[in-house]
């Protein structure tokens, strides 16, 4: 693959999907009937008159879960490169011998295990703090 040309199909796909969505919307706008009405303009809340605006404060636990997700997701992202590299054929040939490269490999593996342990500790901490408690 030379340059960025291998990304062209993805770009085309996004473009086609967008065209499909916008095209369908346009067709719907052209074909469908148009009518307005005061009751039709109301939010649908099972026939009740809406009491106040929707965008008020909401439960802080959603925010806590979002923060926890960000932490764990970013930590997982760090693990993907290691998972791919650890099976790379170029790296495997060093392992059988006892030269420093094999030792380095062990070191990296130990680091990853320590990293996963930290991840687990973080999970236990958030758990004990009641982040995942929804009552």
């Amino acid at each position, binding site marked *: *693959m030379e340059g960025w*040309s291998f990304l062209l199909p993805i770009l085309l*796909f996004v473009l086609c999907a967008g065209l499909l*969505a916008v095209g369908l919307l346009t067709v719907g706008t052209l074909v469908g*009937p148009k009518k307005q009405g005061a009751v039709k*303009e109301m939010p649908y809340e099972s026939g009740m008159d809406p009491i106040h605006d929707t965008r008020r404060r909401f439960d802080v636990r959603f925010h806590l879960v979002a923060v926890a997700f960000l932490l764990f997701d970013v930590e997982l992202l760090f693990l993907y490169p290691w998972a791919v590299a650890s*099976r790379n054929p170029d790296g495997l040939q060093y392992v059988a011998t006892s030269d420093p490269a094999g030792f380095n490999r062990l070191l990296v*593996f130990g680091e990853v295990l320590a990293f996963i342990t930290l991840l687990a500790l973080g999970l236990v901490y958030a758990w004990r703090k009641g982040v995942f408690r929804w009552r």
Partner: protein
Amino acid sequence: MIPPRELIEPLVKIALLIGGLMTAAAYFVLLERRMAAWVQDRVGPNRVGIPLTKIRLFGLGQPMADGVKFICKEEYTPSHVDKRLYILAPISILIAALAVFAVIPFGSVLPPVPGLDSPIRLIVAPGIDVGMIYVFALSSIAVYGVVLGGWASNNKYSFLGGLRSSAQLIAYELPMGLGLLGVTLAAGSLDLEVIIREQAKSGVWFAFAQPLGFIVFVVAAFAEAARLPFDLPECEQELVGGYHTEYSGIKLLLFLVAEFLHMITASFLIVILFMGGWHLWGVTGSDDNVTWLGAALRVAILSGKIVLVILFFMLTRWSWPRFRFDQLMALAWKIMLPLGLANLVVVAILYELRVMVDPDMNSRLWDIGMMAVTWATCFFGWVAVASSGTLVTDNTPRRNLQAFDIDSQL
């Protein structure tokens, strides 16, 4: 002037894929309704056949009638919504749901065609090394669609549905990622084609090699596709329509199609990552030298597996009651995440040991030994889950429990 192959080939594949996927989504709706009818012992939609005749064709005309109906509905935007976001939400969710298929193979490879310098691979964008990362990125954009739809609608049902969905979708992305990490370790790549090829080469599907990772991934995929028992974003009995309560006409159609596409994507991922993709022992072979028959056979086997997984999705829908929201979050964070971590650690240690002792990766004894250990991990994980926090995993209705009992277990 003839456009270059780099332009024609993807465009043809994209046209095939989008056409196939939209048709498949429409007909899976019909299949789901017939299946629901079958489970509930009623007839279901069997009337619509060929128009202007009396031929019914088992209701095969129903999806087309539905489509025409959707198009003829009024394209309505209520005045209380945030107009730009309200229109952007269904468009973005459909684009994300479709564009995922750029890196998902729908077959293996075609035999060499005279006049072309390289064989045609049955994937829109071949050779994307970060394929799975791309899939995860786009499934995160689907969360935006849901949140935007819920927020822009300015309706309490939509808002609650949007909030719940976002929390659910992001929570289950973690176990999904952990299940994927085990596969990445085993295959050494994030490219979906390479992952299939590794399974075909060794003949051991990753579902057998890593049962715990498979279970975690399947549960997370159900939650990501918002299918029962995890369909809290749109539970009809509580939130009317969830985040798309205020939508109608084509915009609603875009949301519904995107939802079915999510289910199809989830089936593709389950089949490709864990069930060998197009590979079947003794039938398909495992390398790129195929005849036309072999290529067609691989596409057929892949589609067959995907239909089986989708049928499983649909049967599940009518077999389990919905989880409560607290159970849903507890299941994600307290059960699936630790189980996924356990699977990852066991698989990582096993592969590291194997690399040291058996660097060529061709000893059958090691294959069997690793499978024994991973199946034991799966068993102990199940025992640990079953013996602790039963209220988290058991969603059967109970009336005799006090709030205190539930609190003490969650």
